[in-house]
């Protein structure tokens, strides 16, 4: 069995809107190892969610995967028939969405929603289904699961809804789990609970986890490797500690310098300008209009990902010349 579970190679997912073609994902490549937790970071419009939707092939209309290859367990997902994809979704590949209030169905009880997923993938008797649902809810730490699974999503708090959504995603013991900003809508103390739960479950079930987030703190605490996206393209891929200590892409460094830290006060460095419009993205390197190191070459052609160290890749023409500062190692 190969050690790579997911191999994404140059995928392009475009949205064909009336205003023009939105190049939401434009040549993103990365791999994921078995049992690894990978962070996918970027701001809104960087293509992180669309990447996950592309792997599951649930890109909403008018979006289309126009190029690239997605290999899961050695099989090309883009060549699979829709029926075979359906078996994978919720089976071997699962996803947790940002907002549990809209990803759970309000008119079915929690039990129904859990057993529907299990029934779609496994042949179980009704009694076993019920037991499995209870077991799942226990796994995610929902108190009093027998009684509460008869309730509807609106009877749950935000944190509890997200636990139900996690239970549903884990129903068929997926090999690969996408968590798309799973804690953005939750309060910090509840976020800490959910992140710890995800981390525990990942270890216990031996899943591979892709953590999609804009929060550099979550990346630092939860992932082993990080892919930084900007405007639909990969800027940098590195082991998480390397990324924070020695970023090689100006965008990564700028993003780190722009985030306030709880454990110290620092001067916030500002990234000038705004996130580009993806109908007419900037030519060349998409970050060049906001980059302090940009030269004429950066405007011409998109730099390709180059290896700059062990498991460290960067797409920047000037990584050799420029000296970037990472996050200072903390005081402890």
């Amino acid at each position, binding site marked *: 069995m190969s050690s790579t579970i997911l191999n994404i190679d140059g995928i392009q997912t475009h949205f064909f809107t009336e205003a023009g073609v939105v190049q939401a994902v434009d040549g993103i490549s990365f791999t994921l190892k078995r049992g690894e937790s990978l962070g996918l970071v970027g701001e809104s419009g960087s293509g992180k969610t669309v990447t996950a939707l592309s792997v599951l092939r649930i890109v909403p209309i008018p979006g289309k995967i126009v190029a690239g290859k997605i290999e899961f367990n050695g099989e090309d997902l883009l060549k699979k028939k829709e029926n075979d994809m359906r078996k994978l979704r919720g089976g071997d590949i699962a996803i947790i969405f940002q907002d549990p209030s809209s990803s759970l169905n309000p008119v079915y009880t929690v039990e129904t929603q859990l057993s529907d997923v299990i029934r779609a993938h496994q042949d179980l008797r009704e009694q076993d289904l019920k037991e499995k649902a209870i077991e799942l809810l226990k796994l995610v730490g929902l108190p009093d699961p027998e009684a509460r699974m008869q309730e509807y999503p609106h009877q749950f708090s935000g944190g509890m809804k997200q636990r139900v959504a996690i239970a549903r995603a884990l129903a068929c013991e997926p090999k690969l789990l996408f968590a798309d900003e799973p804690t953005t809508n939750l309060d*910090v*103390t509840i976020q800490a609970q959910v992140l710890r739960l995800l981390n525990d479950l990942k270890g216990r079930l031996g899943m591979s986890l892709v953590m999609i987030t804009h929060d550099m*703190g979550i990346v630092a605490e939860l992932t082993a490797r990080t892919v930084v996206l900007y405007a639909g393209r990969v800027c940098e891929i590195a082991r998480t500690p390397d990324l*924070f200590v020695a970023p090689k892409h100006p965008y990564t460094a700028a993003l780190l310098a722009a985030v306030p830290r709880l454990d110290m006060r620092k001067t916030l460095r*500002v990234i000038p300008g*705004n996130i580009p419009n993806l109908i007419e993205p900037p030519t060349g390197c998409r970050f060049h209009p906001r980059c302090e190191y940009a030269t004429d070459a950066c405007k011409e052609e998109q730099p390709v990902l180059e290896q700059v160290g062990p498991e460290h890749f960067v797409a920047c023409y000037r990584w050799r010349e420029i000296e970037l500062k990472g996050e200072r190692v903390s005081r402890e």
Partner: protein
Amino acid sequence: MSETLIKVQNLRKWFPVYSRGVLLKKEVGVVHAVDNISFEIVKGETFGLVGESGCGKTTAARLILNLIDPTAGKVFFQGQNVYDKFKSGSSEEKLRFRRKMQLIFQNPYGSLDPRMTVFDIISEPFIIHKHVPRKDWKDRVYKLLSLVGLEEYHAERYPHEFSGGQRQRICIARALAVEPEFLIADEPVSSLDVSIRAQILNLLGDLQKTMGLTYLYISHDLSSVRQISHRVAVMYLGEIVELANTDELFDKPIHPYTHALIQAVPIPDPATKRMKLILPGEVPSPINPPKGCRFRPRCPYAKECKREDAPKLMDVGGGHLVACHIIRYS
């Protein structure tokens, strides 16, 4: 000696909850949104108010501006009672008072009228307060735009043509149009992208330096509160549980809730390995909150605490206030 600009005294807001029904509405409970909070804001400082959703921080802001009436308590602005002014003052007096305090909202998509140009938005306060003669409007609007980092040509555009960060700049320009002394910023960066947040936080800091503004900065994001505030109050279920200078609060928190809140925030530095105190359970409902100490059901030290009564906010030295029976110095 620093001058106190805002003084909040035993402020309380209870919202009654009614049972459903058209004719026979019955009061079935009371939401204790803000319950007996007191603090002072010194001129020129940024006072941070943090807490999780539903803790009453936005209600506190609306009470200070008298956008809603309090159930009990007083607010003083430069020694004058805000509620008396708004109740019995002449309309001119009320307007003069309004000019001194302004509010920036969380969502710059909802707080700008989509049918008005930026010029109309920023000059609208001039119509109401009549403090700028018509012939100076243009100059004043351009000045405000450059103050918040926008260009003159932006004045003729509509809000939908701007990004979230730029819209928040427009909101700030509009708030500054009346030359206020006190600004309440209610989660001003929460709906913005990370790279844009720093722009707005720095802008707020610069404006404070150049114009001597006083801020009440409300947020659930502790990192940004640490970045911008001089003093911070932590709220839990309508009450202030701890209040201290920013560095003191974040480096030497005393209340177990503050501890947990701080430790719950992920630090963007993989080299930091911290012991995490993760609170069990959730914030209880503010309708019929727990008796005595409201934090008790989630408190890790509840077993050691024998007291049944509610703890009072006490000074443990140097203006560091804590409401906890088992005060721990760590």
